[in-house]
């Protein structure tokens, strides 16, 4: 786990500036002799404190790589000392400049030591709190990430046992009558289970996911016969090497078959369209929606919810899963950005 926050990142810099400004307000509001007006004091203190704060942040950002190579305890102490040195030097520099230019923004000349030491002390106190805050935040994030990972492992798309046994039954029936079809079915089933058993969070590619969907639909077409019609429209420009989570599409297609086609006595069409949209990819899976009274009892959209959280986890907010539920049709649309997904 990382003990030092990334001080180059905007959220962290924002927190640093926010805390610096809070400190400024505390200093300015705290009762004093009020020899200078409120707003000028606020302005000069803000400039000074923000300058010190950002200087510390930038230095820690630049020193992050060597610091992280140290033992955590040694690293924390070093980071802390860096901040102290910066505040001591900065205060000394500002005080000297102020005296040289006779601006009267700091304190009279005899208070030089007090100015420098007290600033350093303030910096030490607030630095402790901030480093601790970032550490706890990081710890919390790591835990959330670990929990999400554990949950994802749990969610990891699985192929339903139902499908296995139904397929086995289909194969058993084909062996005598259509040995070649049975052979293909065994190969397809093996590929599907290889993917399902090997899916331990290792990313797959868009191309192989589409291939798996094809194999899955081939088996289901054997099982359901003419009741299952399939159309697949794949854009030639599709980045087939694009990494995606394993078994991303198959559960959605399985849903389309089980909830859309199988409850209909006359069957229906599962239509998959994959196209390139801007720099990303859009995949739409459409299926008929049986009329009320013929629908299967739903499992509260488990497959959809699982897929949605997996997309969120891998692609962040730029990955989208849309569900359009019509009276007679059902459409699931995935929009995936064409980027390297976050490493879990």
């Amino acid at each position, binding site marked *: 786990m990382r003990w030092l926050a990334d001080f180059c990142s905007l959220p962290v810099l924002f927190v640093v500036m926010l805390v610096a400004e809070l400190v400024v307000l505390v200093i300015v509001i705290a009762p004093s002799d009020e020899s200078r007006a409120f707003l000028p004091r606020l302005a000069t203190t803000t400039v000074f404190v923000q300058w010190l704060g950002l200087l510390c942040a930038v230095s820690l950002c630049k020193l992050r790589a060597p610091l992280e190579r140290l033992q955590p305890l040694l690293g924390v102490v070093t980071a802390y000392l860096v901040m102290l040195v910066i505040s001591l030097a900065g205060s000394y520099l500002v005080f000297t400049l102020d005296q040289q230019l006779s601006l009267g923004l700091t304190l009279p000349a005899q208070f030089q030591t007090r100015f420098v030491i007290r600033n350093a002390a303030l910096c030490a106190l607030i630095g402790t709190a901030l480093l601790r805050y970032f550490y706890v935040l990081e710890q919390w994030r790591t835990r959330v990430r670990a929990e999400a990972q554990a949950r994802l492992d749990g969610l990891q798309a699985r192929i*339903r*046992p*139902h499908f*296995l*046994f*139904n397929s*086995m*039954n*289909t*194969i*058993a*029936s*084909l062996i*005598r*009558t259509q040995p070649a079809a049975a052979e293909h079915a065994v190969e397809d089933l093996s590929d599907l289970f290889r993917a399902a058993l090997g899916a331990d969070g290792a990313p797959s590619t868009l191309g192989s996911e589409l291939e798996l969907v094809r194999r899955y639909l081939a088996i289901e077409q*054997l*099982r*359901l*016969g003419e*009741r299952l019609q399939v159309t697949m429209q794949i854009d030639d420009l599709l980045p087939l090497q694009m990494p995606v989570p394993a078994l991303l599409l198959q559960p959605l297609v399985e849903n389309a078959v089980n909830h859309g086609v*199988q*409850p*209909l*006595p006359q069957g229906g069409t599962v239509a998959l369209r994959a196209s390139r949209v801007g720099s990303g990819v859009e995949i739409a899976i459409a299926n008929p929606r*049986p*009329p*009320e*009274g*013929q629908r299967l009892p739903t499992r509260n959209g488990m497959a959809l919810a699982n897929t949605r959280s997996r997309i969120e986890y891998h692609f962040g907010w730029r990955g989208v899963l849309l569900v359009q539920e019509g009276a007679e049709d059902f459409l699931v649309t995935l929009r995936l950005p064409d980027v390297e997904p976050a490493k879990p």
Partner: protein
Amino acid sequence: MKALIVDDEPPARARLVSLLQECGDVELLGEAGDGRTAVEIAARLAPDLVLLDISMPLMNGLEAARHLATLDPAPAVIFCTAFDEHALAAFDANAIDYLVKPIRLERLQGALARAQRYSGGAVAKLQLEQLDAQSASRTHLCVRVRGNLVLVPVTEIDYLMAEDKYVVVHYRGNAVLIEEPLKALETEFGGRFVRIHRNCLVAKARLVGLVRTTDEHVFAKIAGCEVQLEVSRRNLPVVRRAVKGA
């Protein structure tokens, strides 16, 4: 033994056909691809045995078995299922037979022997009790019209009217009699119907509005029906809410 094969998957039916051919002493009456057709065929052809898949369109196997059990003579039912935990759990303890797919010839032969030992009625009765205990609401009502069996989809029912010891089922302009108490129907299909009067349940989806007559009686208007049905004072608040919800 005359057998009927019911499964929505052609290869599964084909396999059962070839297995039954190996069993001998079994005459294949026909095949059906969904529960509703199966019940209709069974009512016409009176098979001794129905091999029934559980997950099927229009009407699932569990419900089909329930309707089959009301036939006279009731056929023996053997469930065939790929993987269904609760079906296994529900039937494990009882004499009802189930086969898991892919079905083994020996298991099928055992089931056939058992079906022959029991009279169809005994098995059916056991099944009926089991299935009632499961108490999933039916998707169809089983009605006899002049000796013929008619399956009325529950989604197509407009309203149910109690008359003497019968209940008249009004659907798509037809009216048929069933011998089930209105109270039991209300319990089974509670979410779908609303009671508007001591003797009447109306499908919520068909309820289009209320009319008040000059003598302070309230009547319910039903979509696609000429008649207006009286709403009792006691049920009025609930009916109002149902109309608003629709």
